[in-house]
């Protein structure tokens, strides 16, 4: 468990270092994820080592957003006179983005024949 955590935290640390060197805003943890992905592709031992720890952290991914969510409540009043406009824009655009993303994915999958026999699995 300690070894797995060491690997995960080290990947994040590498990500944070690389994030400072890149010319565009990409967060350290996302680069850390790519680093770990490369490691998993290279080593079966690494895969076996981190699987239980990674699954443990991911089992309650929702929980990790609670502190930030509580922080947001305090700022709702600060939205001021534009609150309604910002909320409508957020809700409608999120629905449109989900619909457009799913629809584009399916359309291009059909056009290119990348439908995957696993479409309904």
């Amino acid at each position, binding site marked *: 468990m300690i070894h797995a955590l060491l690997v995960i935290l080290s990947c994040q640390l590498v990500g944070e270092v690389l994030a400072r060197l890149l010319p565009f805003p990409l967060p350290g943890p996302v680069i850390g*994820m790519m680093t770990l992905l490369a490691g998993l592709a290279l080593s079966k031992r690494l895969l076996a080592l981190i699987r239980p720890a990674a699954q443990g952290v991911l089992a309650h991914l929702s929980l990790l957003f609670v502190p930030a969510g509580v922080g947001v409540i305090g700022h709702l009043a600060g939205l001021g006179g534009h609150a309604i406009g910002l909320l409508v824009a957020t809700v409608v655009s999120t629905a449109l983005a*989900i619909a457009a993303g799913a629809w584009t994915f399916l359309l291009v999958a059909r056009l290119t024949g990348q439908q995957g026999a696993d479409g309904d699995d």
Partner: protein
Amino acid sequence: MAMTDLVSFWSYLSQGPLLWLTLTLAAYTLGDALFRASGRRPYVNSVMVAVAILAAILWLTATPYATYFEGAQFVHFLLGPATVSLALPLFDNLPRLRRSLLPVAAAILVSSVVASGSALAIAVAFGITGPELASLAPKSATAPVAIGIAESVGGLPTLTAVLVIFTGITGAVIATPLLNAMGIRDWRARGFAVGAAAHGIGTARAFQVHPVAGAFSALAMALNAIVASFVAPLVLTLFR
């Protein structure tokens, strides 16, 4: 215990991290139990329930957010390691991902443009301009990326953080009924659309629904971190 003892015990407890860490886990556990008791209905979102409970407690006890965060930071910190850990479901689904390269590339571009473009168009219709408008452009990206983009285009980082979390919860709540109504059953398309539009909170929801949806959602979130850095500032220039 005398009243003064109770008061001093409360001030001791409420200043340390133990109470707030415990309450964060308790509120989430309650939210998760309600989600299960509802028959896993998407609108009983465990993040939303936990946030409402904790916000009410902070308000009733007049506790500042900074004091609460002393305890909650231990949970908040795990967001980084959890993001790194998403490499595991991505790796497990690599063969599926390889077979979906073109749909993935097209969907991330369209989703990113539609998310920023429609949000800005609606906001402009409501008379929103300047820094507030700029804060809205990157709201579908994961929080640290969105805040970085907001700073670079003259937005307000705090407002962007609020809009990002609100976007995530909205996506997590509406995705299942919306995609069902559209008749989309492909788990790759469903997961990918949620992760692209609603980042980590949408991805957490996708993992609750199906492991393939979760993996594609994680991929979309990671890709949108890159794509939104270019798309959001570009789309914003069309609106000002």
